[in-house]
C-alpha cells in the first residue's frame, strides 16, 4: 500500500491545545510519528530572566492553563530552596489542600478532553460542570477562577475565608456523589473499554527509558509519585495511597485518573481534619530590593500530569539567572507519544495523546 504523510493538528477535534503531529501512514496504520510542538511557545523561561523574583510569581502559572497551581507551587519551592525561606505549617496544609483541589479540577478537565474526544459528550459535560464547582472554590479562596496566583514564596497569599472548610466538603460531596453515574456511564462502559484497552501500550521499561512519569508510569505498576517519593508541603502528614495498574494502556491510564481523583478527595478530608491553626505566610523581603544568594536548585513536585521539575539558577541578582521547567508533557508528548503512536491506528491518535495527558502549552512553555 502507498505510504502517505499526514499532518495532524495543530487544530484538530481530537486534541486539546495547539500541537501537531506528522504521521507516516500506510492505510490506517501509522508507521512513524513525529511531534511538532511550538505553537504555544511564549518563551517564559527567557522572560523570567528579565523579571524580578516577585514579578515572576503571577507569570509562571500561565505556563500551564489547565493546572496553573502546580506551576506556582514549583516556582515557590524553587525560590524557597534557593533563598532558604521557611514556610509555616498551616501554609503547608493549605498548599496541599489547594493542590489536591487543583488536581481534581485538572483531572476533570482531562476527563472532559478525553471523553469529548472519544465522543462521550454526556460525561464530558458533567466533568466540565464539576470542574466549574471546583473553580468556584478557587474563586472564593483566591479571587481568580483560572489563574489563582495564590501560592507564593513564603506561604500562601491569603488564609481560608470564613466557612471555607465546609464549602470544600460540600462541593467534594456533590462531585463524589456523582461517581456512580460517571462509572456506569463511562468508566464501566463497554464501549470505552473497547476503544481504550490495549491502545497506546507503553511498557514499564519503555516508560522508564523515555522519562515517563505520572499516570504513564503508574499504569505500568510502579508507584512513582513525587508526593510519596520526595514529600513536600503536607503530603507526609496524612496516610494515602498511590493508585496503580498493570496494563500500561490508555484504559488503565484513564482509570488511574479516576482513582486519583477519589484518592485526592479522601486526602483533602484528612488534611482538613489535621490542619493546624497559625499564620500562613512568612514575609518575603522587600520585592524591590530582593536578591537571592548565588546558587542553584532543582525542585520537583507532582502535578496532575506527573512529575514537574524546576531547575533554577541565581547569580545573586534580582532576577533568576536561568529557569528551566521540566514538565511531564514534555517527555510524554514528544518521546513517549512518538513511540506509542508507532503501529497505532489513525483513529486512535487523539485517544493515545489524551490518555497520555499531553498538555501542549506545557511542552512549549
Amino acid at each position: 500500500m502507498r505510504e502517505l504523510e499526514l499532518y495532524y493538528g495543530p487544530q484538530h477535534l481530537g486534541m486539546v491545545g495547539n500541537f501537531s503531529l506528522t504521521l507516516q501512514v500506510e492505510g490506517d496504520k501509522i508507521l512513524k510519528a513525529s511531534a511538532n510542538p511550538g505553537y504555544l511557545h511564549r518563551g517564559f523561561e527567557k522572560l523570567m530572566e528579565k523579571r524580578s523574583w516577585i514579578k515572576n510569581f503571577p507569570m509562571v502559572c500561565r505556563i500551564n492553563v489547565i493546572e496553573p497551581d502546580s506551576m506556582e507551587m514549583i516556582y515557590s519551592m524553587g525560590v524557597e530552596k534557593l533563598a532558604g525561606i521557611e514556610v509555616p505549617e498551616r501554609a503547608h496544609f493549605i498548599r496541599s489542600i489547594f493542590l489536591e483541589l487543583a488536581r481534581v479540577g485538572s483531572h476533570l478537565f482531562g476527563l472532559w478532553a478525553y471523553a469529548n474526544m472519544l465522543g462521550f459528550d454526556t460525561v464530558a459535560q458533567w466533568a466540565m460542570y464539576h470542574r466549574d464547582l471546583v473553580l468556584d472554590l478557587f474563586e472564593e479562596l483566591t479571587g481568580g477562577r483560572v489563574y489563582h496566583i495564590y501560592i507564593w514564596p513564603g506561604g500562601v497569599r491569603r488564609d481560608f475565608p470564613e466557612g471555607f472548610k465546609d464549602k470544600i466538603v460540600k462541593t467534594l460531596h456533590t462531585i463524589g456523589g456523582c461517581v456512580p453515574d460517571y462509572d456506569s456511564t463511562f468508566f464501566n462502559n463497554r464501549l470505552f473499554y473497547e476503544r481504550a484497552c490495549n491502545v497506546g501500550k507503553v511498557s514499564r521499561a519503555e516508560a522508564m527509558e523515555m522519562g515517563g512519569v505520572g499516570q504513564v508510569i503508574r499504569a505500568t505498576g510502579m508507584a512513582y509519585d513525587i508526593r510519596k517519593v520526595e514529600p513536600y508541603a503536607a503530603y507526609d502528614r496524612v496516610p494515602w495511597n498511590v493508585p496503580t495498574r498493570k496494563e500500561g494502556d490508555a484504559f488503565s491510564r484513564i482509570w488511574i485518573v479516576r482513582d486519583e481523583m477519589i484518592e485526592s478527595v479522601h486526602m483533602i478530608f484528612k488534611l482538613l481534619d489535621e490542619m493546624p491553626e497559625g499564620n500562613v505566610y512568612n514575609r518575603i523581603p522587600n520585592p524591590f530590593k530582593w536578591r537571592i544568594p548565588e546558587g542553584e536548585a532543582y525542585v520537583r513536585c507532582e502535578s496532575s500530569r506527573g512529575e514537574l521539575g524546576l531547575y533554577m539558577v541565581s547569580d545573586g541578582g534580582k532576577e533568576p539567572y536561568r529557569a528551566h521547567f521540566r514538565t511531564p508533557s514534555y517527555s510524554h508528548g514528544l518521546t513517549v507519544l512518538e513511540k506509542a503512536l508507532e503501529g497505532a491506528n489513525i483513529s486512535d491518535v487523539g485517544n493515545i495523546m489524551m490518555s497520555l495527558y499531553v498538555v501542549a502549552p506545557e511542552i512549549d512553555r
Partner: protein
Amino acid sequence: MGKLSLLGPFSAIKFLFRKPKTLRFPFEQKETAARYRGFHLNDWDKCTGCGNCADICPNEAIIMEVHPEIKAVPENGEKNERPKLDYGRCCFCGLCVDICPPGSLSLSRDYLHIHFDPDTFVFTPRDDNADDKAFVPDEQYSILKASLSHRKRDYEGFSSDMDFALFNPDRVEMPEIPPDERKMSFIEQVTGYNQEEAVKEAQRCLECRLCEEACPAHLKISDYIKAIYDGEPAESLRIIYEDNPIPSICGRICMKHCEDACSLRLRGEALSIRWLKRYAADTIKDFKETLEQNPGSYTGKKVAVVGAGPGGLSLAYFLKLMGHDVVVFDELSGGGGIVRVGPPRYRLPEESIDKDVDYIASLGVDFRFNTRIGRDVEFEKLMSEYDAVYIGIGNTVSRSTRVENSEKCLLALDYLEQNKTDRKNIVTEKIIVIGGGNVAMDVARESLRLQNIQHTGKNTVVSMVSLEDWDELPATQEEIDEARDEGIVFNPAWGPKKVILDDFGKVKGLLCMKVKSVFDEEGKFSPTFYEGREMVIEGTMIVEAIGQGPDYSFIPKSLMEKIEFTVRRKLKVDENGMTTLPGVFAGGDIVNINMDAVTAIADAKIASEGINSWMSR
C-alpha cells in the same frame, strides 16, 4: 473496576428530567466571590501617588498620571499623581494591591466592560463612593450597560491585608540604653545600628522617593539607602555629601522631615532614614580618605561666614568646593554653633560634631573660633575685606517669661552651654523647667542627669510646666516619650504667674495658672487662663526655656537700618539668599520659620550658588 456493561450508560437518561445547571446569562448572573480580583478601585483620599503599584506591575500596565487639580503636599509625602491602568495589559494578579503602602488600591468584584471604543480600556480607577454616576446601587445596575463607567456600588473584592503586604511595616529597632540606666549619666542614648541591622532596615525602602521631596535639602535618600543595602557605606556617604556635609550631626539630631513623608509610615513605621545616615557617617572612620574630595581651583575670592552652625559649615563646604577662600567666625571654642550648645551629650556628643567640622576644615576652610564679630572683629571690616558675607548666626538669646521674680531664674541656652564646659551647673534636688519645646526637654533631661550625678540616691524631681496641653506640645513625640520614661514630671496646660521666693530671697516654687487656650481664633499666640485655678509647684531652681531670638548687636546701627525684615521678624532674603544689604547673604533660623539644621543646610546650598554668581558678576 466494576463490571463492564453496554446498558449501564443508559442510566444517564435520568438526567434528562432534571433541572439544567447552566446559567442563562445575561438573564441569570452569578455573584462573584468576596475576594474576586476584578477591576481596580482607588481611594484618592488615601492614595499618595507614590507609584509603587506602577513599579511592581509585572506587565507595566500602570503609569502614574499627574492630576493638577490635586494639591501636592511634599512635606506629608503626597504627590498629585494617581495610577492609570491599561486593561489591555493588566493580568489582575493584585500585586499592586499588596504593595500599596496606604492601602488605597483594591480590586472590585466587577469584571465586565463592554464598549465600542478601545480607548476606554485605559482607565484611571477612583473610589466608588465619590462617583455615584459610575457606581450605581444594585437595583439600578443593568448587565446590558456593564462597563467601567457602569459598575456596582460597594462591590469591593480583593483588598489589602497587612499580614500579606509585600512591604515590611516594622522597623529594625534602634538599640537604646534603657531609661533607668541612661538617666544616670550623659552616655549617648542610642548605640547605632550595626551592619546587619542597617542592611536589614535599608532593605525596607520602597524607593518611591517621597522623602526626597519632603527633605528641605533634597538629599538623594533613596540612593544612599540603596548603597547601604548594597553594603557600600562609603558610596552612601559620598551621595550624602552631595547635599549635606554634616552627616554625623544630622544623623543624630535631624528633625527628619523625610520620615514624616515616608510611605511606610502610613500603615506601619517610617523607615529610619536618620539612623541610617548616622550609620553611614559612623561606619566610615576617615572621611578624607573615603570621599577623596579636593577644593576647587582657587578663584581669588574671599567669603566671610558669621557663625559656624549647620548653615555656616555647609556654606563653607560648598564654597570651598567651588574654589573660594572661606573664613568662618564663631564665638564658641569649636564648630557646630547651636548644635554644639543645645543638644545634650546623650543625643549629640562633641566628637561627632568635631568629626564633621574637622573634615570641612581639612578641605582648607579657615575657622576662627573664640572670635565674636562686633567685639573682636568689626562687621564693617568684614564687609570691606571680603567679597561676600554670610550671616548664619541663628537664635542665640533665650527669652524670659518676665513674670514676677523671673530674674531669679536661669535661661535655657546659658544653662545648656555651661553644661558643655567643665564647670557644669550645680543643681538642686527640685528643679522646674518652664517650656514645652525641644530645648525645654533638653534642659529637663540634662537636669535630671545632673541631679542623678550630684545627688545620687536622693529623692530628686524635675517638673516641667508648659502652656500647651499634651496634644499641643511643640516638642517631638519621641522626646516627650523618652522624657516621661526617664521619670520627668509634666504639668501641661499650666502657665507661670509668679516665682515664689523664701525669706532669704531664694527660689521656693512657681505659682501657676490653669490655661484655657494658648492660641486665639486666628491662630496667634495669645494665652488665656481660668481665673482662680492656681497651683504651686515646689522647686528650688527654675530654668526658663520658652524660646530664643537672634542677637543682631554686632551689626552697626547705620547698616541695621538698611536691613529689611518680614512681618514675622525674619530677615528678608531674595531667591539667592541675599539680604537687602548687597553682598550680605543670610540663612538658617534667622530667615526660616522652620528652624532646624537641615533647613539651614538647604539655605546654605542656595546661598552658595547665590554667592558664587554674585562674586563672579
